[in-house]
């Protein structure tokens, strides 16, 4: 008996939804896209090569759905609902100089391709090669998109090189990584 690869889809739901949210910045739209993508994935399972990365395959279906909708709409979908910018700032800010709410706002201002590249490479841990494959572009294109996206974020957040250095001090690193500041010894 062969396992149905489709049984694995459920494991990727949180990631698929997170990817949809970062692309659309609108939870209603994100959920519609996830729904469409699930139906497509289910019916087109024969296009999935067993042994390859199912998450990458699902992400590819989702982004194709998104871009084909965007083409039909003739424009980028705006962050009308503010899903990216709604703050999690109830969490104590500690002394993290980079406020998460500000970061979300800045991230939402990037263009679709830049957000996508950053999420794939910077957050989801795909390699440049995998991301390039998923987006159907050259590896160099993905690299330049992520670099431009980071530069734009730094600019939007008025993040100078010096500030960036300050922010990597141990206390901030601890906040960022969620670890306690360890006293030496």
């Amino acid at each position: 008996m062969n396992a149905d690869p489709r049984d694995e889809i459920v494991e990727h739901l949180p990631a698929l939804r997170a990817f949809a949210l970062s692309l659309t910045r609108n939870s209603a739209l994100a959920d519609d896209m996830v729904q469409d993508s699930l139906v497509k994935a289910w019916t087109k399972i024969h296009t999935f090569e067993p042994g390859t990365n199912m998450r990458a395959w699902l992400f590819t279906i989702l982004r194709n759905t998104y871009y084909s909708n965007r083409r039909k709409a003739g424009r980028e979908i705006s962050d009308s609902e503010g899903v990216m910018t709604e703050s999690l700032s109830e969490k104590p800010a500690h002394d993290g100089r980079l406020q998460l709410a500000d970061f979300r706002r800045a991230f939402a201002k990037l263009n679709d391709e830049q957000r996508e590249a950053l999420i794939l490479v910077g957050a989801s841990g795909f390699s440049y090669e995998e991301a390039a494959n998923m987006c159907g572009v050259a590896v160099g294109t993905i690299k330049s998109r992520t670099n431009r996206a980071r530069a734009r974020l730094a600019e939007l957040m008025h993040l100078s090189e010096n500030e960036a250095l300050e922010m990597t001090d141990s206390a901030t690193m601890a906040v960022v990584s969620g670890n306690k500041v360890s006293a030496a010894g």
Partner: protein
Amino acid sequence: MAQTRDNTKQAQVIDENLKRVYQDMLDQKVPDRFLDLLSQLKEQEQKPEQGGSSR
């Protein structure tokens, strides 16, 4: 080059924040509609096409 090193640090800071934002999205509860949809799709398939109800 110092410039390159600074840019690398900056990229690190940005990616760390990016991961936090992404993790927050990952941690959200998956709406039931998706689990329902998957089980519906599965059910539909297991039921062979029938001309009419067997009951």
